[in-house]
């Protein structure tokens, strides 16, 4: 491993300044992904700036039903927070569907948002990867890509965003709070945090050097809505999603859909908010045929590869199953 410096920032301004003045510096929170990448030689920061003591470690529930989640709240704390479990059960479920108990006890909210793809080529420095080494090529397209993306990809990169928590956050209309290098705070929708690969797959978010995520804000969940997160993977624990779905659903008395929000995981370079499918479903019953049609429209622009084409129908079937289960009483599930 390469030598690196470790600095512990005591306030946000210091953290931003430390990173801004050192081009090879990186923020360190839980380190559950970054440290692995350092061991693999994928990341080689000269300085790690520890941001765990900046006071962004609380879950603040507001009277209006919304919540502000601090950037360094541990995944395990967030998943177990009684207010989160009551008001945003899909978020709690999504977090618990990821990683292991040990990792969740170290990983943080912001770190989880910024985790990198687990594409095997990105993680293997002996092989080309446009994301790691721009212009070197993408062997995944003709090679191992079963786990990779079918939506939002480019000829340069087919990597998948691997997380679970962010998929639930996308369905919950999360806002990401960012503190700029100049100290100015701004907020952006979670979906806008991520940049699709295009011909610059090494650029994954809109964050600029010195930008620090300080928290994630969730507006109140729609009154009377039910929500769920379901993940399909190759084993029943400790595996990344092949496809996952976070859904928020409110139906009218006749069973038709009043409001629906759908986010897909495991299929795109970012948590994929399925807005086309959502609008197609409004006013309709969540029948298999209607879901099929809505998801058909959503996935029309998909670019599947031979070994991951199965994800398209799987995503459709999973959305159908989740919406069906959300409209049936708990005991029938």
């Amino acid at each position: 491993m390469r030598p690196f410096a470790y600095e512990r920032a005591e306030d946000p301004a210091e953290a931003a300044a430390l990173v801004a003045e050192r081009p090879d510096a990186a923020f360190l929170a839980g380190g559950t992904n970054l440290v692995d990448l350092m061991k693999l030689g994928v990341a080689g920061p000269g300085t790690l700036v520890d941001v765990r003591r900046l006071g962004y470690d609380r879950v603040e529930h507001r009277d209006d039903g919304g919540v502000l989640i601090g950037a360094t709240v541990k995944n395990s704390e967030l998943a177990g927070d009684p207010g989160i479990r009551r008001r945003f059960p899909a978020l709690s479920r999504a977090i618990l569907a990821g990683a292991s108990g040990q990792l969740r006890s170290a990983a943080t909210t912001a770190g989880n948002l910024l985790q990198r793809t687990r594409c095997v080529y990105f993680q293997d420095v002996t092989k080309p990867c446009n994301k790691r080494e721009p212009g070197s090529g993408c062997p995944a397209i003709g090679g191992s890509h079963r786990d990779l993306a079918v939506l939002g990809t480019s000829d340069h990169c087919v990597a998948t965003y691997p997380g679970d928590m962010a998929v639930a956050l996308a369905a919950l209309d999360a806002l990401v709070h960012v503190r700029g290098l100049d100290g100015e705070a701004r907020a952006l929708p979670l979906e806008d945090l991520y940049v699709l690969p295009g011909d610059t797959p090494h650029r994954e978010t809109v964050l600029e050097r010195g930008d620090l995520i300080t928290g994630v804000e969730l507006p109140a969940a729609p009154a009377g809505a039910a929500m769920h997160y379901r993940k399909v993977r190759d084993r029943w624990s400790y595996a990344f999603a092949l496809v996952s779905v976070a859904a928020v659903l409110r139906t009218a008395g006749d069973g038709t859909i009043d409001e629906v929000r759908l986010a897909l995981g495991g299929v795109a370079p970012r948590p994929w908010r399925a807005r086309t499918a959502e609008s197609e479903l409004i006013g309709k019953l969540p029948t298999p045929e209607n879901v099929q049609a809505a998801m058909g429209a959503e996935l029309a622009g998909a670019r599947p590869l031979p070994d991951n084409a199965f994800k398209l129908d799987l995503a459709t079937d999973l959305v159908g199953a989740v919406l069906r289960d959300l409209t049936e009483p708990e005991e029938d599930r």
Partner: protein
Amino acid sequence: MSTTTQRATGAPIVRVDGRAKVTGAAQYAYEYPLENMAYAWPVQSTIAKGRVESIDDSAALARPGVIAVLTPDNVARLQVDVELPLPFLAAAVPDLSLLQSREVAFRGQIVAAVIATSLEAAREGAGAVEVGYEEQAHDAVLRFDDDRAYVPGVVNDFSPGNVERGEADRAFAEAPVRIDATYSTPAEHAVPMEPHSATAAWDGDRLTIYNSDQGPFYSSLPISALFGLDPGQVEIVAEYVGGGFGSKAAPRPPTMLAALAARLVDRPVKVALNRPQSFSLTTYRTPTIQRLRLGAERDGRLAAIVHESVQQSSTLVEYTEQSVSSTRLLYAAPDVRTTARVRRLDVPTPGWLRAPGDAPGVYALESAVDELAVELGMDPIELRVRNEPDADPETGQPFSSRNLVGALREGAARFGWEGRDPAPASRREGNWLVGTGVAAAHYPALVFPSTAQARAEADGGFVVRVGAADIGTGARTVLTQVAADALDVPLERVRVDIGRASIGVAPFAGGSIGTASWSWAVEKACGALLDAVQEHGGVPPEGLEVQADTTEDVGALAEMSRGGYGAQFAEVRVDVDTGQIRVDRMLGVFATGRVLNPRTARSQIVGAMTMGLSMALMEIAEPDPEFGDFANHDLASYHVASNADVRDVDCVFLHEDDKNLNSIGGKGIGEIGIVGAAAAIANAVHHAIGLRVRDLPIRIEDVRPALQDLRVR
């Protein structure tokens, strides 16, 4: 001497080394603190075939902490054309001949190594070594119809690559009911908890290696021979080993790297591979493609079996698994042809992994038998019973014991097989499709010559020494039980020392031969010691020691067909919406002779069945043809069963009294638990959804095509 009333063997004794392991007192190969230690980190080839043209180590040597860079130019010359007594030890030599040539045979091969004062410095230095290659086109893809695949004279279990009785192809063509199906299994890795690691130290021309090793004595043979030393000049210490599953049953490159690096810098050197390195340097189960043809009469009697398998090996070593061997004796068909072919590719060398050959081979055979049962409309247990042979169908030899039928019957009763609706996709529970499956298991019961020493101390204690290795199996505990009974004393008065080559000739913990072979020598030594004590009229103050060797006893065994048999049962459920598969329960019933310790035996079998679950549904090292290696090489992307995947896994041992095996009357149980497990699960998946998936692992996308039509409620 007091007489004990309770025998230790047969009792569920807790591990004698359990406390040392869980408290960290047990020392593993990487944990021996020698003075002046250095650390080596390999530089691995980034091409799959070609030649190393240049190695620039200047940048590495300039790094702080770097002592030396081991290259073909400064490495000790080894006796690479050495001859060894056992073919499987000879097979280890090409991969152990590190840096003796500049030719590159596979991606990931060691082409240099950096030796430094710390692990971190060595690793960092390795990244700074510049290697220039002359690259050649490589071929790393296994195909069934590749005409460069050939039938080897002898496969891994010493049997011929091709065996035919009767006229199988003709008999198949004439059979009224025929199954003709091709199955495949992927490359699989052992990924033991403890990575391959070694600490090597030279003292003049004497070499000591603390090695993560399944067979310290056997390992000393190729290593001493390669260095041109006598076996007695090489000590291998393997007191504790954190799993091996076959991958540590012969010394692998990291062991030799430690020895060569220590030779170069004249100080002790440690090597421990990380997980990605392990995927190319520690062997793996070869992928297989197997075509099974079963011809049967309408009453289920098998008329013909043709089992053809093709598998891969590296260009360095001809390693061919015995994937068709169990087919030669499991069923009483008159006309049988079994053919194993091997294709030498530009890939890392494969090797043993729990039940080599039999795990993939029986998966294919027992899937085909299930297909035949479906075709015949016959219960798959009854079909197997109908084809039960009276004697070994291949050799005509009598079975020393064989209770496959008993295992199937007992399993059927315990599992609740009776009343099973054989129709596929007939059982629905909410969103789940539920199915059950069965498969037979077989693994040969071999015994190899071993030595042991037994010593009586004047204080009433005993020390028994045998060159065994306990890789987590419980061997140390079981050998203590065997010794205590043979000496007729309580367990507490016996200490069993294992894990050193210098103790003497002893086979490895591999091929399910360990306990049977070591125990025989231990019993013999203990018996001789009691005789000696009697002769002396007691134990003299300086103690009394005797030695035993079972070479003649093993050689005198009658020609018989010896093997363990079992029946595997599985119940699975498939989510009709998504295709997610869950194994609700597994039951294995085994007839494996006398059980010496029900606790550790159960642990062995349940572990192996769980490995079979992984084999059926998860494990695949994905070939990366463009580069010639495996695309996935860590435990995040190479999946084995997690706790959440393992629900109800149970095993039962049938009583079996076999006087024709060895002194303890036991058959090895290290491997048989995985044999047939994947087939039982695959057969259950077929029963659940009506679709036969013939390529392992069975994953979501494989079962989904069946689900569309099954979704209507």
